[in-house]
């Protein structure tokens, strides 16, 4: 397995994991058959969609950004830009549901009651500012 030999203790752990995985997998299959019945196409689209969006969009874009940062950006700017992008990018991604306010209800002002877009603009500005300041200081020093 990948050139690393499996030791005896590895085999023991694998056996324990198999003992857990087999009943869990059977239970998972029975639950999925029940949950998906009559709705397979829709559920299938949602299950495969995440992988397709990751492998087709998120991963190539992050590889391209990685190459760009290591070629286009001057050396002192590479580290702050990468750190900023990882933090800003992951917060932006999981904030999509609140940024879009898709679940907002006209009769319930207590749900999604924060100025999310303003906060996101502030987060973006703060990221740019921090990356800028750190980048400039490092450029001067080098």
């Amino acid at each position, binding site marked *: 397995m*990948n050139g690393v030999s499996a030791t005896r203790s590895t085999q023991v752990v694998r056996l324990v994991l198999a003992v857990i995985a087999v009943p869990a997998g059977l239970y998972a299959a029975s639950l999925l058959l029940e*949950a998906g019945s009559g709705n397979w196409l829709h559920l299938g689209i949602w299950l495969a969609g995440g992988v397709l969006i990751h492998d087709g969009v998120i991963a190539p874009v992050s590889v391209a950004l990685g190459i760009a940062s290591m070629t286009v950006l001057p050396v002192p700017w590479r*580290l702050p830009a990468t750190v900023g992008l990882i933090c800003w990018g992951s917060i932006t991604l*999981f904030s999509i549901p609140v940024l879009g306010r898709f679940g907002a209800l006209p009769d319930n002002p207590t749900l999604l*009651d924060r100025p999310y877009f303003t906060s996101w603009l502030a987060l973006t500005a703060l990221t740019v500012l921090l990356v800028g300041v750190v980048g400039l200081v490092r450029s001067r020093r080098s």
Partner: protein
Amino acid sequence: MCSGRILVPHPPTVLAVKPATLLDRLPKVEDFSYRLRGPQVTSRVGRWLGVAFAVAFLTGVWSHLQQDTPGWLSVPTRPVRLYQVTQGLHIIAGTVAVPLLLVKLWSVFPRFFQRPPRPGRALLVHLLERLSIGVLMAAAIFQLVTGLANSSQWYPWSFSFRSTHYAVAWVAITALIVHVAVKLPVIRAALGVPVEAAVPPDGVEEPREHEGETRSGGLTRRGLLRTTWVAAGLAALATAGASVPVLRNVSLFAVRSGEGPQGLPVNRSADAAGVVGIADDPDWRLEVTYQGESRTYDRDELMAMPQSTHVLPIACVEGWSATATWTGVRMADLVTAMGAPAASDVLVTSMQRFGAFGASLLPEDHTADPLTLLALQVNGMTLNLDHGYPCRIIAPNRPGVWQTKWVQRLEIDA
């Protein structure tokens, strides 16, 4: 000796070359730098991603048991805040998993371009591994996406969230166990050596640079790991305020600020439940039944009974929670007034006309508990119509959906 080929092209050669060139133009595993993308980073991020998924899975299964309690289980009434804590942890673990999963998938992306081996046993093993990774990725991304959408009450799908999220949770945890079992030797080798060390067979040793940075200005493995932990911490801080009151002013991306009428957020409004004009009708009477006998109370009669005041949280499956001071009649008093034992199951029916959870079964332990109230007031004020006027159930350690509002009837079943 090449002139012949140049002058007289061979069509079959051109045809044979074409698909090969196309395949050659795809990136290869070797095209990616293995300095950062190796088992050292993958296994260290994966370890915490595994912890996040395990926490989300265990708290999720517990939530499922609290919401849909099987006959063999008796859910305790203490600790009072148990469901608030487990469900808060569930959402925080899911949110923290987003940056961890992104970095982990980034670190293994080159494997996507691994060419399949020649037909035979190796190909079969390769395809099986691909399949198991595909199932794991699909299930993991599905859980994070649907969970985050649900916490903001966004349902852009036609399947049932609860049963599907529960089913795919078991798929994800099974696929994760299989994945750990398959990769165990690689994980052990990578975690057993310093983060800079090379892990065979394709590993690259990382030159020791100054703190977190390579000579060319890129992140070192250690730098990438630290950035990942910071991103995960920021993810928690940005959203956890919905369930951790101390963080309310920090969590700018929390689904609720914790504010609302009478200092309490609302999950389903009176309008959405279709009780406007019904629950606030002055002719409303609470009906309590036991063994064929029934008794009715108007709101003044309930207010004239001995009142208790307790501080209890409302904790919702979406992860938000809020604590309030509730005043009302002890459920045990209403039950014993009918001649029934205090420890009786009570079927609580709401006046709500729309939406799920229109009735709840209060188990005997909860009925007998002195903290369980038929609440008439919240924070010293008459219940707002959105909070369940004329009266609602408030019990310790109960999922919010079972804290039935706009109560019409209590059926005691000893």
